[in-house]
């Protein structure tokens, strides 16, 4: 049991579960304060999400919709995770996600490209956008968090400006992909029939596959080793002959490509249209931070954490609007990120607890041995 608890992965899992439970609990308390009458129902509605429907096929369809939005979230989370492993906090994932959406929609609607080139184009644009942060960081010593935030806003306004050329004439939304550019819709490979939901595409398995690839790159390749070494100690990595500047830029390019692919994964399913009058950066990239940390900074853990974050975000739509607002799920996920800051402390406390009980056992054993020793003399 002790050995089991000492395992780092197990500790991460326990810490994440503690964060989730506390997050839901605090969310519940907030609901109680707002209106005690429907608080229990509301928090249950958030947690149940698609189980709020009673018919099986509707449940499946809405489960599919949650998955459709999980794919881009997972990509953003992987982007944050990958950069964090190299010691960089990629808050710019939100902006990279936006330019990915912009590139894929532009290529699809204005240039009539089919889906694969659209995805690749989004990746390239995202990588270049991430490279700006990397260049500023490695050559000008600009903090990546601040430049990331600035680029988020620059990306948003640029996207609004560019996509205005492919919007519907009577609304601020971009054209429906299904009518205007059916060649760019991501293929569904039978997933559409399985979920009875036309938006479920290969984006979902591709995102999961990416998580596995990231795991392999980080743990099993020389590149991953070098990148992590750079993250742990830039100077030591440099001394050991690694190109630390190149590694930082490369990392942010990969992170940018991942987040941008996330944007393409959502908008090429025609699940949503981009509104060119948006005045705030979409929350997808920021929720990605939550998912990455909740997943214990492990790509596989991040898959489940992304699903959970998206699950409660969608679930927020089911609360009773006459009493509460759907933002309660944003509140819960932001509380969870805040609590993720304490993960190190939780692990430390667990290890302390284990060490203390081991110490006690040793003392007991020693006392027992001493006793039996005395007994032997008699």
């Amino acid at each position: 049991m002790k050995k089991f608890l000492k395992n780092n992965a197990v500790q991460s899992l326990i810490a994440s579960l503690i964060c989730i439970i506390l997050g839901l609990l605090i969310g519940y308390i907030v609901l109680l304060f707002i209106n005690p009458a429907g608080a229990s129902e509301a928090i249950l509605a958030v947690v149940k999400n698609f189980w709020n429907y009673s018919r099986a096929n509707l449940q499946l369809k809405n489960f599919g919709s949650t998955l459709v939005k999980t794919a881009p979230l997972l990509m953003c989370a992987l982007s944050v995770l990958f950069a964090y492993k190299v010691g960089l906090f990629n808050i710019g994932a939100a902006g990279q996600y936006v330019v990915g959406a912009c590139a894929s929609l532009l290529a699809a609607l204005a240039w009539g490209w089919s889906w694969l080139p659209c995805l690749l184009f989004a990746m390239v644009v995202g990588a270049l956008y991430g490279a700006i942060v990397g260049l500023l960081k490695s050559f000008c010593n600009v903090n990546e968090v601040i430049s990331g935030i600035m680029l988020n806003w620059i990306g948003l306004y640029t996207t609004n400006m560019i996509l205005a050329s492919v919007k519907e004439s009577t609304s601020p939304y971009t054209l429906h992909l299904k009518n205007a550019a059916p060649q760019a819709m991501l293929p569904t490979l039978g997933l559409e029939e399985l979920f009875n939901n036309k938006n479920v595409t290969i984006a979902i398995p591709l995102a999961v596959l990416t998580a596995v690839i990231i795991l392999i790159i980080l743990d099993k390749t020389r590149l991953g080793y070098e990148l992590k070494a750079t993250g742990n100690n830039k100077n030591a990595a440099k001394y050991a002959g690694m190109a630390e500047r190149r590694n930082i830029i490369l990392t942010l390019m990969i992170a940018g490509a991942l987040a941008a692919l996330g944007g393409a994964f959502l908008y090429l399913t025609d699940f949503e249209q981009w509104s060119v009058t948006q005045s705030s950066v979409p929350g997808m990239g920021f929720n990605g931070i939550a998912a990455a940390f909740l997943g214990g900074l492990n790509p596989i853990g991040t898959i489940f954490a992304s699903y959970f974050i998206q699950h409660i975000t969608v679930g927020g739509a089911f609360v009773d609007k006459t009493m509460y607002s759907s933002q309660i799920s944003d509140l819960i996920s932001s509380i969870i990120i805040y609590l993720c800051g304490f993960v190190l402390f939780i692990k430390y406390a667990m290890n302390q607890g284990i060490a203390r009980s081991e110490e006690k056992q040793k003392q007991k054993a020693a006392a027992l041995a001493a006793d039996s020793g005395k007994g032997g003399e008699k």
Partner: protein
Amino acid sequence: MLLLIQYTLIFASVLLLVALGGCFSEHSGVINLGLEGIMVIGALGGALMMRYLPSSTPAFFMILLVLLGAIVFGVAYSALLGVACINFKADQTIVGTALNMLGVAAATVLVKAINTAANPDDVSSEIQYAGAKRAFLVNFGSFEFNWFMLIAVIMLVIAYVVLYKTRFGLRLMACGEHPQAADSVGINVYKMRWAGVLISGMYGGLGGICYILAGVSLWKFENGVAGFGFLALAVMIFGQWKPTRIALAALLFGFFRALSNVYFGFPFLMSLNLPGSVYNMMPYIISLVVLAFTSQNSRAPKAEGIPYDKGTR
């Protein structure tokens, strides 16, 4: 033209207040990336005060109480940063980011709850304060003077005096430069860092209420404060963590932010025929460029961002 000056001054006031907040926190050794969230919560405190005070309240008390509301909310909220980063040695970047998201989410949920309770059909996250806002404005001809311009200057002087002329300020800065040395001469580093964080909460809260009073007379809390907390951090870095330089930097950034509000009043700028988005982007682009040139020789407090642990040397 007068309008441009007016907007420049008011946006510069916001940036100055928030950047000074960041300055206090960073000099004590804690990077405060949560300023954006603190601004939102401070704005919420002030806006609630304006909503519930009768509009017949004398202007002086109105201003005082609104400031108080913003300060109390800002300080209380910054305590979340203090607990996590000082006592529990959490990662300051994660906690700061969490506070930004939490600020917007909490303010939205709360305001919507208040609005829905007052009127079940009202599911907006807006607070209106057109009446109360008048207390803050004095018209000189067509120039609209906002008391916050004066408040920002007063707070600047206070920040300068406290940081450089008092024992407290010098000790505070020592904790950001070399906490172990400060500890060795009997300064309580944890207390000093707490002071730095709470003062930044106060400044951040003031900046938040100033921001929502800058142009409009109703605020939608879903929108947050559009990256102003981070612009303020850029101002702080450009100002090299020194209050007087921060003030000059704030004027520069305020000018570009003001342009996006009033560019259509200038025939010269209109003749360039640029889309409005370009002006919206301007402050962020300028800050990137400025940071690229000033970050190399940064005079950042040396120990910022590193949790202080008595047991380590």
